[in-house]
């Protein structure tokens, strides 16, 4: 469960999040889209406190994210984050990448952590890559390892920031397939993406942002076929012709 209550954020003079009010119930798959610079990344980066906010409150599973007394380790243990650029640790093998947080955050014994890591690796279809280094993997494989690395912490919530934007077209499918699998399992997901096919297939709701504001939300079918606002219509026509 994620809730934004009157959230405002500025980067200097830029009002990057303007009076955001949003409720994301447990198990929802939310797709966030909007033009470049509209604040999509910033919005989800606030959820696990990669970014501070100046006004308002964000609540994740009863925890007030930006309150100094909040246990950040606990919060982040419950929230996974998948980056556009994967950000695997280049000096560690795939297995070590996945085991790091379970061992050092959850204090799981090494042997158990390895078992979990291998499980998650199998889940994303990369069992045979356990001993490989990130640089030896394709982009799509790296992103799947990044997802496995998050899954090893058994998060209740997963945040995705354009997980397929840095990938060659032929690799987008393999990553989306993994995400579709997750969506069917009841993990709460916030996905910044312009993949309309993915949105239509698994999203419960689409949120359209522009200039730091939530302009429109709706069911994916309704949103993409009959947007309520001109701005959304304009945006959709652009990604369609793109």
């Amino acid at each position, binding site marked *: 469960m994620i809730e934004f209550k009157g959230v405002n954020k500025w980067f200097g003079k830029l009002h990057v999040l303007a009076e955001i009010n949003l409720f994301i119930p447990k198990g929802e798959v939310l797709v966030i889209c909007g033009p470049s610079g509209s604040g999509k990344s910033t919005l989800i980066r606030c959820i696990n406190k990669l970014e501070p906010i100046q006004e308002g409150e964000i609540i994740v599973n009863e925890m007030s994210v930006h309150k100094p007394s909040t246990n*950040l380790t*606990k919060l*982040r*243990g419950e929230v996974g984050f998948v980056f556009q650029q994967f950000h695997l*640790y280049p000096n560690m093998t795939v297995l070590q990448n996945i085991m790091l*947080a379970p061992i050092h955050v959850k204090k799981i014994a090494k042997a158990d952590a390895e078992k979990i890591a291998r499980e998650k690796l199998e889940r994303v279809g990369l069992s045979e890559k356990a001993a490989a280094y990130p640089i030896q993997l394709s982009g799509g494989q790296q992103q799947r390892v990044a997802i496995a690395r998050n899954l090893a912490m058994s998060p209740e919530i997963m945040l995705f920031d354009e997980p397929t934007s840095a990938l060659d077209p032929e690799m987008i499918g393999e990553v989306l397939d993994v995400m579709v699998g997750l969506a069917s399992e009841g993990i709460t997901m916030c996905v910044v993406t312009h993949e309309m096919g993915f949105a239509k297939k698994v999203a419960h709701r689409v949120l359209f942002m522009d200039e730091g504001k939530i302009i429109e939300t709706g069911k994916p079918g309704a949103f993409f076929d009959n947007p309520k606002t001109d701005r959304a219509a304009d945006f959709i026509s652009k990604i369609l012709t793109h």
Partner: protein
Amino acid sequence: MMAFYLSRLVEIFPFFLKGLWMTTKIAFISLIICTLIGFVLGVIRASNNVWLKRIVGVYVAFARGTPFVVQIFIVFFVFPEWGIQLEAFPAALLAMAIMGSAFVCEIVAGGINSIPKGQWEASASSGLTKIQQLRLVIIPQSMKVIIPPLVGQYVLLIKDTSVVSVIGVTELTRVGWITVVRIPEGLMVFALVGVLYFSISYPLILLSNYLERRMTV
């Protein structure tokens, strides 16, 4: 005459070895202290803590921007006025620590800053604390960037120990001075001093070259 001096030099060679031992001791101890303090300062310098960063910045600027011999004089002659009275040996170590840690600090900060922000963000997102992020993810990756110049810095540290002779520590350079008074063959005496310095710095130079080659591939 030359032959006579040479045999005298051989006679007092143990004195040179004592000087070499003192030089090695100062270099080695200060190298460890510099590394420890330098890493801590480097981490602070690469952090987001504006005030601590500034304080370390001033310290580093002072330590790098003034001659080492002046720093030694300050430690040995000025510190006592502030109630910090040190023997020549610990004073030498302290001065070396101040100077060397500033250089190590810059090398470490440079290494940490060379790691992309995404590595911090990925490890933070997974729940690691700041210290764990540094220890488990950032520092191991930055070692590649840190180690070659660090070893190079060690070589400079060894050579800089010669400056501590000015406060009367009987290390290798001072042994040379003392000897040359009795054996007025400057070239011969200081050639020997040079060779002895070289004997401890050369292995490090080789190591530095080797690491440089290995770490850049």
